[in-house]
Each structure stands twice: as structure tokens, then as C-alpha cells.
């Protein structure tokens, strides 16, 4: 590893492409991930996030473009790169025939660690993901959140330079999600580079220093969550919900009320820097929504602006 490795991006992709027969899953995307950064791919299901992650993880060969990971080429150096990655796949791939602790021990062996080293790290990691008291239990009876935390612990057994997390909290209940976020946040504090995919805008906002928005195999925007919101949305949003049937009869009444109006099937979103002003102005025009919500703009609004669709359908 050369000294200037610290300044060069850990992951460097130019015109990166993945094709499956006639279908293009990832279409010429460019991105760089710096050391110590938490970098996200935000997009709906089918946007190409997992295919991108699998190429970075060196388990799926690239179809075109350029990809360098840790200054190595995945086409030739797959095993050497994988030795320094920690992978948390979308669906758990734990060994149900082993105990919680054995899952960590045996995984460390695949990275060439000695048994003593595996045992030491396994105990530390079980402590870190708050599973120390479940070490001797089989994996099967664990809750979804516990399995996720065990998968995260397993991915850390080789003390990776980069963690790849594919939808780390999909399918977890809110409490379990917060526990996972808390652990990932601690890893980030320790300087571990995180690369994650998500279709939850709150997850992206909580964890990512920088992210790219993906839609239909392409990157449509890039920046920090705050930058993206500033660039593509207003400070606030007023959400109006009308009684069934009313929204369809309204036409033109929202004209000029806000900087931008999005009409979704179940509600109308009015984008403005001061949401309360919009609510008052709407009342003056004789609009009577059933419910009114004024909130700050989120990445969901950014996504809606960029693609015309919601993230989670």
C-alpha cells in the first residue's frame, strides 16, 4: 500500500456497467468513495443498487467501464480485495447449523485468521453487537434484528477497510432498526468506511455523509443529504389530504400557492420555504383539506422531484 493511498478514493467507478443478457442493471455510473466516508446508494427496488454492490464486493464481474477498489482491479484481484471487505448481504446468509459464536469463528478462518485470533475477535464483536449472552445459542431462534447484528459482527471479523451493507435494516421493526443504526454509527465514528444501499430516506439521512440517488440503472443526483435537499427541494412541505373524491375535483386552485406542487394519488404536496404561509393562503382560497401537515423536506421529496415517483411504493 503506497502512502498516497490515503488521499486516493477507496472505490473508484467510471462508466461502470452491469448487463444481464439484454437487461442493463447498472448503466454507466460514476462515483468515488473516500476513506472514512459513509456513502449511500438511495433508490427504489430494481434501481441497480444490489448489482452495483455485488460488483464492488467482487462476487459479480463488471460488464463494462472501470472499477477500482483499494487500488486493485476486481477482474484480477478478487480474492485480495475480498480479504479487506466486510459484506452484509441483503438476506442473511448465516449458518443455521452452528451457534452464534461458531458462526463468527468459522468465518474468521476463511480469512486466514488463527483460531486464537478468531476467538478473541468473536468475543469482542459479540459484545459490540450486544449478543454476548447468546453466543452458545443456535442461530435459528434469534429475532430478525439479532440475526442482522450477527451478520454485521461476522462482516467485521476480518477488520475490513470497507463495509458493504445492502439494505441493512429492510424488514426490521423500528426498535431493531435503531439498534442497527446505532452500531453502524459507532463504526463510522471509528473511521470504518461504510458503503450502503437503502430505499429508506431516513436511513440515508441518518447514516450517509454523501449519497447518490439511483433510478432505473442510472445515478440521477449526488451530494450530501442536506445539499440534495437544498438543491432539489424547498425548506418545508405542506401536505394536504382531502376527503375521498375531493382532490380529483380540484383543478388550478393550487396555482401560485407554492414554488412547486406534486399531486400524489392520496395527497397534494406543496413545496415552499414557509409551509405555514401556504396553509394560510390555501384557507384564504377556500380550500378545506381533511388534514394538514407541515414538515421539513426530506430525501423522499428529492427523489420525487427527480423521478416523479415515491421511493417506497
Amino acid at each position, binding site marked *: 500500500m503506497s502512502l498516497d493511498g490515503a488521499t486516493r478514493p477507496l472505490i473508484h467507478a467510471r462508466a461502470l456497467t452491469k448487463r444481464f443478457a439484454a437487461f442493463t442493471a447498472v448503466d454507466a455510473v460514476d462515483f468515488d468513495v473516500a476513506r472514512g466516508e459513509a456513502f449511500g446508494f438511495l433508490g427504489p427496488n430494481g434501481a441497480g443498487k444490489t448489482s452495483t454492490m455485488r460488483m464492488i464486493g467482487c462476487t459479480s464481474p463488471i460488464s463494462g467501464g472501470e472499477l477500482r477498489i483499494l487500488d486493485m482491479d476486481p477482474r484480477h484481484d478478487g*480474492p485480495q480485495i475480498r480479504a479487506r471487505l466486510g459484506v452484509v448481504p441483503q438476506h442473511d446468509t448465516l449458518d443455521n447449523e452452528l451457534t452464534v459464536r461458531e458462526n463468527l469463528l468459522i468465518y474468521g478462518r476463511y480469512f486466514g485468521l488463527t483460531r486464537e485470533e478468531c476467538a478473541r475477535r468473536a468475543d469482542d464483536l459479540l459484545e459490540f453487537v450486544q449478543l454476548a449472552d447468546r453466543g452458545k445459542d443456535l442461530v435459528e431462534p434469534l429475532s430478525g434484528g439479532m440475526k442482522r447484528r450477527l451478520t454485521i459482527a461476522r462482516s467485521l471479523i476480518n*477488520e475490513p477497510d470497507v463495509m458493504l451493507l445492502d439494505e441493512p435494516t429492510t424488514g426490521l421493526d423500528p426498535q431493531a432498526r435503531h439498534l442497527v443504526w446505532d452500531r453502524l454509527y459507532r463504526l463510522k465514528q471509528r473511521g470504518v468506511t461504510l458503503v450502503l444501499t437503502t430505499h429508506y430516506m431516513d436511513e440515508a439521512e441518518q447514516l450517509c455523509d454523501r449519497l447518490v440517488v439511483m433510478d432505473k440503472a442510472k445515478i440521477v443526483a449526488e451530494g450530501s443529504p442536506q445539499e440534495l435537499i437544498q438543491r432539489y427541494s424547498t425548506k418545508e412541505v405542506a401536505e394536504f389530504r382531502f376527503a375521498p373524491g375531493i382532490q380529483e375535483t380540484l383543478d388550478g386552485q393550487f396555482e401560485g400557492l407554492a414554488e412547486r406542487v406534486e399531486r400524489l394519488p392520496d395527497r397534494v404536496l406543496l413545496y415552499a420555504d414557509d409551509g405555514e404561509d401556504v396553509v394560510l393562503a390555501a384557507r384564504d382560497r377556500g380550500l378545506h383539506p381533511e388534514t394538514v401537515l407541515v414538515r421539513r423536506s426530506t430525501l423522499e421529496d428529492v427523489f420525487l422531484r427527480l423521478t416523479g415517483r415515491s421511493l417506497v411504493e
Partner: protein
Amino acid sequence: MAALTDARGRTTAPGPGLASSWTTIARVIEHRALQYRRTFRASLFSSFGIPVLFLTAMGLGLGGYVDQNPDPSLAGLTYLQFLAPGLLAATVMQSGSFEAAFPILGGLQWNKIFHAMFATPIRALDIVLGNLAWIAIRLTMISIAFSIVVVAFGASRSPLIVVAIPAAVLTGLAFTAPIMAFTATQRTPDRFAAMFRFGITPLFLFSGTFYPIESLPGFLQPVAWISPLWHGVDLCRQLMLGTVDRDPVLAIVHVVVLGAITVAGVLAAARTFEARLVRG
């Protein structure tokens, strides 16, 4: 994190091509052995129990009936002595086929542990060879247990029974390797039932396990000749009865046929595993 260089320094970098290092294979064996510890007792019980059942029912029961009118093709052997080596090869074939089907599909499809392994430095070929090596160990254990039972039944006629153990294991691997290649193309176990019903069971019945293939109607005899199990059965029989010196060329042909099927199976499995693991 702290010990990055440490972890890096210790990671292995397997070379290119088909070469696979013993250390990576040894890790897969270690993993499988750890899993096996939980089912060890039940498995040991059946390793001894099945030969006891078969040799009692077929060897002593059916054999007692057959030996009342000894057939010249048995060449002075008791039926139990004739049956034991064939049954050894056939039992190992069944175990080797089973091990290549359900546990392998489990790793690829159900708990997806092979996909987790593929995210570490080890490669698809390492996963194939490691599992094959583990299955070879299991088949050796089964063959040893079987041979102990055969000796206890007084059905062994030659110290070469010791060499019949690797011969039986090779017979098993000639089924394990190609079936592993097939398993990696499957997402459900649906076709395994057909494979056992229309593949393994007919071979079990028509490969000279229970009677010399010369007893079959003439048109069926070539079926036995192309059966990999027949090669295994005949090889084990030559060794266990100490008759290998009568036709050593045939014994070599058996070993070459079984070895060639195994190698072809490994090459096929390396491709199907790679394709499957890359696809995800």
C-alpha cells in the same frame, strides 16, 4: 480499525487458475466438521446399523436360501461373501449421492452459506473441492464402519478389504462430483426425487450388487457395463474376495473409469458453482 495491516498480512492470496491450496480446502473441511459434530452420534449409529440390517436380511436370510442350491457363478462363495462387497459400494454410492444433493443445495439456496463464503477470499473451486474432500472423509467413515461389520459377519476373505475402503470411496465420489455439478443448477429439490428414483435406484438394482450381471437377460448386460456402480462393485469385490490377481487389468480399468468420472464431475461443478455464486 486498529489491526488492519495485521489482518491484511495474514490473508491468503490464492493463485490464479485451477490450483487450489490445501489450506483453503482444510478450512471448508473444518467448517463441515463443526456442523457435523451435532449429528455425529445419529450418523455413526446408521453407519453401523445399515450394514448390519442389510447383511442380516439379505446376506444371512436370503443367503441361507440361495446357498441351499449354490449357483456355479458364485464359484464356491457363500451368498453373504458375494453380497458384502457389492453392498459396500452401493451403500457408499447412496451416501455420496445424498451428500451431493440436499446439503449442497442447502448451502447454495436455503441458508446460502456458500454465498457468505464466496464473499471471503476463497473461490468457487475451493468451495467445490472443500466439500468434496469433506464428503470423501464421510464416505471413508461409512466404508470403515461397513468393513468392520463385514469382518464381524465373517464375510471377508482377504486382507485386501483394507484397500476396498478407498475403492468404495472412489465409487462414491464418482457420484458425488457430477451430482454436485447438477445440484448447483437447481433452486429446489424437486428433481432430486426423480434422480434417485430413475437414476440411483436402478443402478442399485442392476449393477451386480445382488447377483452376477451374467444372470441378467443378455440385452440388459450392457446396461451394467456402463453403470459406474458396476465398476465400483466389481472393484470392491475383486479386492474383498482377494481375486484381483485374476484380472488386474480390469481392476485398473475400474479405477480409471471411476477416477475420470470424478475429475469430469469436479470440472463441471467448478463451472456450475461459479455461475451460481456469481448470479447470487
